[in-house]
């Protein structure tokens, strides 16, 4: 048996087909993954993302500690509640984890992947010797993502007036506490959305209320096609410890300024930059019928080869799309091998859909 969120029985009652994801038993879909996908693009839906790893870092050295541990610079988060996208790198500059970090009154809150939760607890603790910090895994919290163009409006009907006021006024990538609830304007779908972290013992009642107000539950299947259309990378697929953020379309998670800030992986990244980055993560669109999948080989005539790191059918576009790691010289055309046959693909910026609009 895998790990279960407090909503496990509700997922079953809602007809979910459950799958294993990073050791968790989670809903793949509640009937139709494609319908759920469209629902988030056009209205809104709720994801149980309680498997995600929440870690609070506090203590007088929380800031210098995380300036060492993270590729983006938490000193840039000047106000309490401010957040940004970041990464934890190894000494070789490979991506151990990608995350969102928020400044809080006591320090910082890190939202990282379920897959690496135990590993990064160890990784963080292993580096605390010269710092006065406390690291607390918040597995006492549940976590929901309410996403879609109607999410703020619909969620405001469910929340009490103080929390409704908070979510209506949150800037992108910001969070705010209301008691022991933490509400953030973040998401993984390319639509407007709010994420809520709350005590696990209140989660089932709240999930029930969301469903009762007609907010549709959405499974991991649609979460994956939504993030792929938005061009958001997935740990283990599009990035890993053997790949630098520069080859994963994650340049924006690396803050090389100020130069005097040392962070784990910095030396390796600087060497990579001075040697020249050889690969990039691009978007692919299959113009013919078929489905692009992770692992399929890509070839670029006159340039070289690459690999699809994430691929699926895009419900919004109606064609197969993918993220692929290819040589840096790759232009606008390529070919992908599907079942021993090569198909032409268009190479595009890895951002296919945003706020309901097709960008490619």
């Amino acid at each position, binding site marked *: 048996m895998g790990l279960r969120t407090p909503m496990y029985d509700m997922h079953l009652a809602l007809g979910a087909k459950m799958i294993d994801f990073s050791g968790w038993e989670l809903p793949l879909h509640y009937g139709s*993954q494609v319908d759920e996908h469209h629902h988030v693009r056009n209205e809104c839906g709720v994801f149980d993302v309680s498997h995600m790893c929440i870690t609070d870092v506090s203590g007088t050295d929380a800031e210098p500690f995380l300036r060492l541990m993270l590729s983006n610079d938490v000193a840039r988060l000047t106000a309490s509640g401010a957040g940004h996208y970041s990464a934890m790198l190894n000494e070789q500059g490979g991506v151990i984890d990608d995350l969102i970090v928020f400044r809080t009154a006591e320090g910082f809150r890190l939202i990282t992947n379920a897959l690496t939760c135990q590993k990064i607890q160890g990784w963080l603790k292993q580096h605390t010797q010269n710092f006065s910090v406390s690291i607390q895994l918040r597995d006492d919290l549940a976590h929901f993502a309410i996403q879609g163009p109607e999410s703020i409006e619909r969620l405001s009907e469910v929340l009490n007036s103080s929390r409704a006021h908070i979510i209506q006024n949150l800037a992108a990538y910001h969070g705010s506490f209301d008691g022991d609830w933490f509400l953030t304007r973040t998401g993984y779908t390319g639509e407007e959305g709010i994420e809520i972290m709350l005590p696990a013992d209140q989660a089932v009642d709240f999930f029930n209320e969301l469903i009762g107000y007609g907010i549709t539950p959405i499974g991991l299947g649609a979460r994956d096609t939504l993030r792929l259309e938005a061009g958001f990378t997935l740990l283990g697929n599009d990035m890993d410890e053997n790949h630098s953020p520069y080859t994963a379309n994650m340049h924006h998670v690396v803050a090389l300024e100020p130069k005097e800030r040392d962070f784990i992986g910095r030396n390796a990244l600087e060497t990579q930059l001075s040697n020249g980055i050889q690969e990039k993560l691009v978007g692919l669109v299959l113009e013919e019928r*078929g489905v692009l999948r992770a692992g399929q080989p890509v070839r670029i005539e006159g340039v070289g080869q690459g690999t699809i790191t994430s691929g699926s059918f895009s419900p919004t576009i109606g064609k197969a799309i993918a993220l692929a790691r290819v040589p840096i010289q790759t232009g606008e055309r390529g070919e992908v091998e599907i*079942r021993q046959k090569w198909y032409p693909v268009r190479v595009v910026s890895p951002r296919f859909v945003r706020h309901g609009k097709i960008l490619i």
Partner: protein
Amino acid sequence: MSTTPADLRYASTHEWARLEADGIITVGITDHAQQALGDIVYLELPQPNSQLSAGQIAGVVESVKAASDYHAPVSGKVTEVNEGLTDAPEGINSHPYQSWFYRLQPDNPAELEQLLDADAYNASCSA
């Protein structure tokens, strides 16, 4: 809960087969199969006039989740393929027993008798 019409025959690999009045066999995939696959977005059909043997891969069906081969339930020659279904493969999810993939002239009609009946197929799915 999936449906399994009593008037069809089934392969343990989740294809249904229907013997038509003219001796041709019509083939598709079962309700159980489409439920397991999830939203189907792509269908690759066998070549018309190709010869298939029982159990041989006849084509590929892909859902948002995964690609899956389907197999010939009996040996025979492909007489017709449902080209229209490739334009709207989601029909396989909504009407699995109307969404036929191809028709087959069986080499040996008796082979059909070796396929599972509805009860035996249901039993094999729950095994």
